[in-house]
């Protein structure tokens, strides 16, 4: 079993209408329930808007702070799930379900095995 990070990329700008949001939340929760029932769900987090972010950088030994998200761009990370899957095909299947539910693009990325990073 391998773990994958499913990241939701959200466009900047006003959120969808309350009705649209209600449908989306219902569908997303349904996918999460499906993941849990299948033993695939590990963790999920929804993030506050990108404007609430802070970036810390160390330059010349000094920690500098900037207000806002890391990447300039029109989309930002809106939330993520960690899932367990046998292989990429299985992870992609969850990614598809999440993409339909959120109506947003989902990035599916493999997580490195703990085994390899153990000392």
């Amino acid at each position, binding site marked *: 079993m391998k773990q994958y990070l499913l990241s939701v990329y959200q466009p900047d700008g006003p959120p969808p209408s309350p009705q649209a949001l209600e449908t989306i939340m219902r569908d997303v929760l349904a996918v999460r329930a499906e993941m849990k029932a299948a033993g695939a769900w590990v963790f999920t987090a929804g993030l506050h808007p990108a404007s609430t972010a802070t970036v810390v950088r160390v330059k010349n030994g000094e920690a500098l702070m900037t207000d806002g998200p890391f990447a300039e761009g029109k989309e930002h990370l809106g939330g993520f799930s960690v899932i367990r899957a046998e*292989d*990429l095909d299985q992870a992609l299947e969850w990614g598809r379900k999440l993409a339909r539910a959120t109506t947003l693009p989902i990035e599916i990325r493999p997580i490195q095995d703990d085994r390899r990073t153990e000392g």
Partner: protein
Amino acid sequence: MTTAPAASEIECVFRQEYSRAVAVLIRAFGDIDLAEEAVQDAFTAASERWPASGLPPSPAGWIIATARNRAIDRLRRETTRQDRHAEATRLFSSDMVMPVDPVNIDVDPMPDDRLRLIFTCCHPSLAVQSQVALTLRLLAGLTTAEIARAFLVPEATMAQRIVRAKGKIRDARIPYKVPDARELPNRVNSVLAVVYLVFNEGYTATSGDRLTRDELCAEAIRLGRLLVELVPDDPEVTGLLALMLLVESRRAARTGRRGELVRLADQDRALWNRALIEEGQHLVRSYLKWNRPGPYQIQAAINAVHSDAASAGVTDWTQILLLYDQLEAIAPGPIVALNRAVALAEVQGPHAALTVVDALDLERYYLFHAIRADLLRRLGRLSEAALAYESAIRLCENAAEREFLQTRRQSLD
């Protein structure tokens, strides 16, 4: 006393057996690089021994058994080094690979192994360019240098592309398996698209001076044959093979003595390869019975109608137009509409065809302008035709085709 096999005979065996050997070894060891290296080692051993000892009764079995032993040797060396990194770079973890004792692996390989390999190489999570590169590398056995030359990219670029693709297969864990029934039709389409892309690249190079790149067409057809063998119940697979055979049958007539382009209408049909035409037409007849039409089957049928005509003048354009109508119904799009318009011109005249063509949004496509130019010329609208040829010439990236278009342009003056 057996006669020593010729180098070309051995080479032929290698070409045929490379993908099968690699596919079996990947299943046994779960590592593409290990499989490739082991098979290369086996080929080296074969080219040293077979000239003296003759071809073994089962060359495939010999190669697989030898490669298997080489792979085991390599792994033993790695384990001795306690190289955890080497283990970690194994493509598929041990729980994914079938529990096969490598010492006793089936030397008579299942057809499934090459099928697994094709589907892995053409996984939709890989960029199409990467799918093509991997397919040519692992299934056609072309070297990185050969693939780079075929696609006119620097060898280092192609090598990077292949390394990255293998890395993704390993790290994202693309499974080494035949997709299940639900996924299979989509996945077969990906594979067919890659094979067709390779064929098209070989038939009309998108850039560069040579009009054709023979090796790519031959490899595409070989892959097409393999696919028909491995996926016999999908008529589109047969359709693609038929299409490639029928297009390939015209190769000798397609280029003139100076390598210039000769259009279908002007080709010397005596130069067409009758064996390929017969094979292609036989395949077309065989899938018509199944009545499960698809784009490749219809395109092949269109080419079969062309191949039926003893001369351009007796081409059954009405039949071709009907086939394009069918193609438009199942796979509509501007390119199909453009090609259909060419047939429409022969049945209803250039005016009807130009009306259709003018409505298409294909400004960036050189053939759009070339076809427009030809229709305008036939309608006597020569200054407009000249402008259209000029647009086509500007957008065309193949030197032989450009030369052809220039000749057409000049003929208007």
